[in-house]
């Protein structure tokens, strides 16, 4: 068991020991940044509405590399998502890449421990891209993930490869005995013309409070296409701060869907860096906090190069005493002329104690751009409820149908059918809609 203060000392000692590896420098730098900045407080502009500091009040249990695996293959098989058993699986146990549980079933894709990738033929890619997201995050929590970096994974999708199945990234936390602090780390590289679907899911086993600080960086080369589905349907004792950082370095596309249904505290940073001309990115989000849940989505589109297109639609349904946060930053650099960037955020508050903070943030330094943004906060449409009731549908079911309708255009963005149907089921279950198909 450790406390956040002696994590620094432990890492400082570790990184001062003899020996050299290619990750040492970046970890050193990150550790210094962590020392300077610490865990963000709500005084930090980017963390104004999301209080993570209290998650660090308790003793933290950091996983140990090479420790005995706390689960068996059968344990994990039982937790698979639809389609996962046939697909490629990248499994992290307590934040550590588990070679034993990870399986590649498609050709053209490879998983290598990050520490090895940093030394072998992938070294130039790792050097060029690992840690690129830290430029976008001035807080110590993100830095700590890099400083601590061990047992990360590197995923390579070869030139022109189109793996026939998605890559499931499964983060498993063992929260049966101790308060876990997990820091999974992953770098994904899509070579030119490669195509990859990623499905990213967190599973907490056990009832002890558990915190994940996850960083996934992805590099998308010329004519490649990344689809990224982030699914958050975890236990009520689990909290997550995640950064998904997608960097387009050649004319390429991405499609990202983030669905957050459960979790005590969820903070998602999604960065789309359009670092080549004619890139296109679509981002969709659905968040449905309940009880005392807190779900925060911070998105950033950084238009570095001209002629890029981005479109963003996030929808939230807040019930009970829960809170939602949406912050959508669009950054258009001076040379990024002819940028097209659209953003929309729509919220429904289901209870007087629920709340949402939504803020578009446009910082535009080029003059020839098209940007638009809009946000709405409202309640369920009473006229709509009455209309459905007048057709024999009960009030509760009418509300559920309206909410389902509200969520539908986000769910439709989930292209893998097995996953979409599964999400539909989860949402129908949440809305207590079971009898008919919608």
């Amino acid at each position, binding site marked *: 068991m450790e406390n956040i203060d002696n994590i620094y000392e432990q890492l400082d000692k570790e990184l001062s020991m003899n020996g050299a590896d290619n990750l040492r420098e970046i970890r050193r730098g990150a550790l210094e940044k962590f020392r300077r900045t610490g865990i963000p407080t709500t005084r930090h502009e980017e963390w104004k509405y999301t209080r993570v500091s209290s998650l660090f009040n308790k003793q933290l249990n950091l996983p140990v590399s090479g420790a005995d695996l706390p689960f068996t293959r059968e344990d994990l098989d039982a937790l698979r998502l639809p389609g996962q058993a046939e697909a490629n699986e990248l499994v992290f146990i307590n934040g550590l890449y588990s070679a034993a549980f990870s399986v590649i079933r498609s050709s053209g894709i490879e998983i290598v421990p990050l520490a090895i990738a940093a030394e072998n033929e992938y070294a130039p890619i790792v050097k060029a891209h690992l840690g690129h997201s830290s430029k976008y995050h001035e807080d110590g929590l993100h830095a700590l993930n890099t400083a601590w970096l061990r047992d990360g994974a590197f995923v390579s999708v070869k030139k022109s490869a189109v793996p026939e199945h998605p890559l499931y990234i499964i983060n498993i936390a063992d929260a049966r005995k101790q308060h876990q602090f997990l820091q999974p780390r992953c770098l994904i590289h899509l070579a030119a013309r490669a195509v990859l679907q990623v499905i990213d899911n967190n599973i907490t086993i056990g009832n002890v409070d558990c915190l994940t600080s996850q960083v996934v960086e992805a590099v998308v080369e010329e004519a490649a296409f990344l689809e990224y589905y982030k699914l958050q349907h975890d236990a009520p004792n689990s909290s997550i701060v995640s950064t998904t950082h997608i960097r387009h370095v050649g004319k390429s596309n991405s499609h990202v869907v983030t669905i957050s249904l459960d979790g005590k505290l969820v903070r998602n940073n999604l960065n789309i860096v359009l670092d080549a001309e004619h890139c296109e990115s679509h981002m969709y989000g659905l968040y449905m906090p309940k009880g005392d849940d807190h779900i925060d989505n911070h998105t950033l589109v950084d238009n570095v190069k001209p002629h890029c297109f981005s479109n963003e639609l996030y929808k939230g349904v807040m019930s009970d005493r829960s809170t939602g946060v949406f912050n959508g930053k669009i950054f258009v650099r001076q040379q990024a002329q002819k940028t097209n960037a659209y953003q929309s955020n729509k919220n429904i508050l289901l209870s007087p104690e629920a709340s949402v903070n939504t803020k578009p943030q446009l910082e535009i330094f080029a003059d020839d751009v098209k940007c638009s943004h809009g946000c709405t906060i409202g309640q369920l449409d009473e006229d709509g409820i*009455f209309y459905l*009731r*007048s*057709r*024999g549908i009960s009030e509760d079911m009418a509300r559920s*149908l309206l909410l389902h309708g509200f969520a539908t255009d986000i769910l439709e963005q989930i292209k893998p059918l097995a996953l979409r149907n599964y999400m539909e089921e989860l949402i129908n279950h949440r809305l207590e809609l079971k*009898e008919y198909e919608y």
Partner: protein
Amino acid sequence: MLSIKNLTANIEDREILKGINLEIKAGEVHAIMGPNGSGKSTLASVLAGRDHYDVTGGSVEFNGKDLLDLKPEERAGEGLFLAFQYPVEIPGLSTINFMKTSLNEVRKYRGQDPLDAVQFLKLMKEKMALVNIDKTLLSRSLNEGFSGGEKKRNEVFQMAMLEPKLAILDETDSGLDIDAIRIVANGVNSLRREDNAVLVVTHYQRLLDYIVPDFVHVLWNGKIVRSGTKELALELEERGYDFIKNETATV
């Protein structure tokens, strides 16, 4: 079938319905006409159970039941149907799925088994033909982006699916061209039976050429001030409402 006695209703403390009396028997067609703002839609909404109107007095009996005591969905189950003057747009819910839910919920209320997919589609095809509505429209989100005429035809389609005992059509003819009016009227007429009834709210005589009423009522300032046969509609068309206003003013 429907017996309204001395019904009064407020919205936000303003009295809109000021003592309505109306009897509708099985097999009859009644028309309500009246100037804008006279309370026609308010009456229709109160009958359907819209809760932002406060019923302050009177009673409504529907097939022996106290209608005002029922929830809107129960009223639908009992066989009441309101075709809305302004049908509501419901994003993300297709008309087909909506109708499947609606029909099966109503059937459940009536103690009938739900229709399976095959039976439902068969019924739907039949009713679609009746109002000349096509499937692509019904696969889209309910009323969203529908033209005025499409919305109205969709209302009649829903009515045809649910086969109500009492259908209230609130200006279902407004905004329709003459062909569409004929289609809507045919739809309504083909559903007429001895054991059901229709209440048509309209501003225009021309709908009544197709759906011929047994009785015509004039609603003015929250009251039915005149009742007659279909000739009354013709008279209103010729002379406007003013002659009635003048008459009632002198009463």
